[in-house]
């Protein structure tokens, strides 16, 4: 233990010099030595006058070696560095400073081991504070060991990077899947269109009278080719929606005109099921904000669904309700309603109430999921109310044009 | 002793006042032209200027760009930058132009040092 600390050499009174010289004999000295941070004090002559136990261990320099020496004598490598200028600033202009680990990769040469092994260097966050006492200026330097924090953040950074890379791979795969689906569907559609054309010609009899049994087989082939084309068109729509390639031309749309046109298109389909469409009063000139073709696609889907699930001889009621700038189009059928256990899945892809229904009812099971995506892309929403055995009402909500 | 003409370019009026007061103190007979911007300074190139003291940070044209133009327009003038931007990159640009570089704040000694180049 050094006894060379004298109050006439450094700017400190004799009581304090006593504590600094042999901290283990004094309560406050013990407190300083038990601190988990490195602490040292510099006086206005830049001489070190306090050096706690943490500093002794991390620097491998004993009190006797440093007390009374200037900061630069103890750390010659730090001459002209920022730490020297902030110590000067604390003593000259009484400003407190912070040196972070991120912006000052190497602050003090301090190590966890006596061997000064670079891999065992202590990562530091340093604070420099001015102190005044008895008319003298001092500067307190505190060193906080942030090694655990640095290590933890390094791990987090690696994890974040890996997560991002994994996400990129997943996005890449998903994009590939969409492109693949879209390409395959296009390639399927071309030959299928010509098959349907040929079958149609044969079925119409222009190629010669058909035997009844051949006519029946050709009709089956025709219907199934038709279904396959619908399915491919729906799959193409889905993949366009998923890859964000479906374009929307939004603008004012005359709702009544679109509804009338949509009903006309579905009239023949409804007749197959012996179902009539009935449009309740719509105020002329009701204009919504939408893409005409896409809105028509959704309405066609809902109207054909309603006919499909209606009992023979009933009507499908279509009404328009306006409330708070939102226009709701309701399509109500008087069929069996939607089974409770199916309600939550109804807008999912390839979902139909009962697998066995598919053949009887027809359709791809993609229509509602496409409709939902389209309505949402147009800023609206889709939903339904139903009671089993009584019927179902599907509705879409879109914005009134004036409000956009 | 000959009469000299000094051009002071600085967007800060107080800075121009400070520089001017030191010059006038030493050489009351010298002609002093003040400009608040680079563009304004360029309108004075017709006059025979012996010394230019130019600030770096100014709205519009910066001091180095102005000095560069002045160097070819008035080759006989001694030019010095006077700037709060004390980064090395700026000093290097001044050095490569062969003009003086003095750091703000403005003090009498610093201005006297610049003046001595043309006295």
């Amino acid at each position, binding site marked *: 233990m050094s006894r060379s600390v004298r109050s006439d050499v450094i700017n400190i009174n004799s009581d304090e010099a006593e504590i600094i010289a042999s901290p283990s004999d004094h309560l406050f000295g013990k407190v300083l030595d038990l601190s988990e941070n490195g602490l040292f004090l510099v006086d206005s002559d830049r001489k070190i006058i306090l050096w706690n136990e943490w500093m002794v261990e991390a620097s491998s320099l004993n009190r006797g070696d440093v007390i009374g020496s200037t900061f630069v004598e103890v750390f010659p490598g730090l001459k002209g560095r*920022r730490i020297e*200028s902030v110590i000067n*600033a604390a003593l000259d*202009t*009484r*400003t*407190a*400073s*912070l*040196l*972070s*680990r*991120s*912006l*000052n990769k190497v602050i003090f040469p301090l190590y966890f081991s006596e061997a000064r092994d670079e891999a065992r260097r202590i990562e530091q*966050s340093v*604070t420099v*504070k*001015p102190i005044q006492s008895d008319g003298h200026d001092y500067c307190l330097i505190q060193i906080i060991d*942030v090694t655990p*924090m*640095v290590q933890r*953040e390094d791990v*987090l*950074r690696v994890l*974040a*990077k890996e997560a*991002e890379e994994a996400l990129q791979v997943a996005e890449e795969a998903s994009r590939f899947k969409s492109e693949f689906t879209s390409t395959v569907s296009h390639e399927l559609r071309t030959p299928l269109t010509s098959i349907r054309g040929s079958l149609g010609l044969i079925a119409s009899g222009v190629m010669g009278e058909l035997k009844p049994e051949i006519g029946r087989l050709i009709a089956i082939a025709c219907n199934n080719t038709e279904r396959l084309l619908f399915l491919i068109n729906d799959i193409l729509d889905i993949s366009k929606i998923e890859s964000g390639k479906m374009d929307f031309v939004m603008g004012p749309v005359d709702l009544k005109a679109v509804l009338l046109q949509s009903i006309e298109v579905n009239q023949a389909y409804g007749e197959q099921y012996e179902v009539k469409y009935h449009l309740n009063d719509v105020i002329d000139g009701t204009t919504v904000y939408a893409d005409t073709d896409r809105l028509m696609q959704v309405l066609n889907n809902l109207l054909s669904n309603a006919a499909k699930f209606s009992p023979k001889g009933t009507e499908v009621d279509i009404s328009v309700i306006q409330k708070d700038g939102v226009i709701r189009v309701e399509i109500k059928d008087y069929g069996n309603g939607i089974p409770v256990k199916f309600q939550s899945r109804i807008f999912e892809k390839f979902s139909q109430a009962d697998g066995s229904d598919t053949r009887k009812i027809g359709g791809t099971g993609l229509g509602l999921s496409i409709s939902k995506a389209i309505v949402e892309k147009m800023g609206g929403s889709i939903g339904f109310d139903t009671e089993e055995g009584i019927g179902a009402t599907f509705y879409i909500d879109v914005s009134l044009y004036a409000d956009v | 002793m000959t009469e000299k003409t000094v051009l002071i370019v600085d967007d*800060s*009026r*107080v*800075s121009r*006042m*400070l520089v001017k*007061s030191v010059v006038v103190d030493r050489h009351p007979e010298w002609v002093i032209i003040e400009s608040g911007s680079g563009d304004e300074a360029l309108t004075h190139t017709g006059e025979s200027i012996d010394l230019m003291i130019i600030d770096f*940070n100014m*709205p519009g044209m910066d001091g180095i760009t102005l000095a560069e133009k002045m160097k070819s327009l008035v080759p006989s003038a001694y030019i010095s930058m006077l*700037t*709060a*931007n*004390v*980064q*090395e*990159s700026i000093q290097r640009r001044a050095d490569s132009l062969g003009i003086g570089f003095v*750091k*703000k*704040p403005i003090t009498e000694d610093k201005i006297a040092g610049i003046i001595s180049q043309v006295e």
Partner: protein
Amino acid sequence: MLEITELQRDYITEVLNISMGSAAAVLSEMVNEEVSLSVPEVDFLQRNAAANKFDQTNAARMSGVTQSMRGALTGDALLMFPEEKTLSIVRILLGDTVPVESLTEMEQEAMCEIGNIILNAVVSSVADLLKKEIMSSLPRFIKGTGSEIFSVETCDNNDLVMFLKVDFGLESQSINGYVTLMLNVDSLHDFISQLDEQISAV
């Protein structure tokens, strides 16, 4: 709003720009990157007007650093940037490649240090102007809206703040931030009279 003459404003701006120049030099040396700092605007505003200025000019939240001052001036000094700008400053200076949603502890500390350098420069130039001593504390990271930061709701005295716009130039992009010093009325008058004395000495 307190009226100050153009000449007074010019003088304060010049003094602040000189100290910002040296703060920029320190920062650029630390990060090996050209950094420019300047103060294009100085205003004296009431606390709630300053809060409004934050809330109106930046719909987003602000984040930055605060230090408290003691001595010739008592109060707080703040350096604020729109929250996402704070992130880009740190990213540019630290050169981190991983996009993380918010600032980590280490990055907050780095921001504190950047703020510390800038605020110390501002505070010491004000202290030089006053020819008095101002002690400043260590920086603390804060964020919030204008009214939260200026505690408009909880603080009933509507004292004046010195409001500086700061241009932080990094990598060919310029990021706008704000430095505010909360001043009490006495120190403000002291400040203005010191200013006049020094201007008349020119």
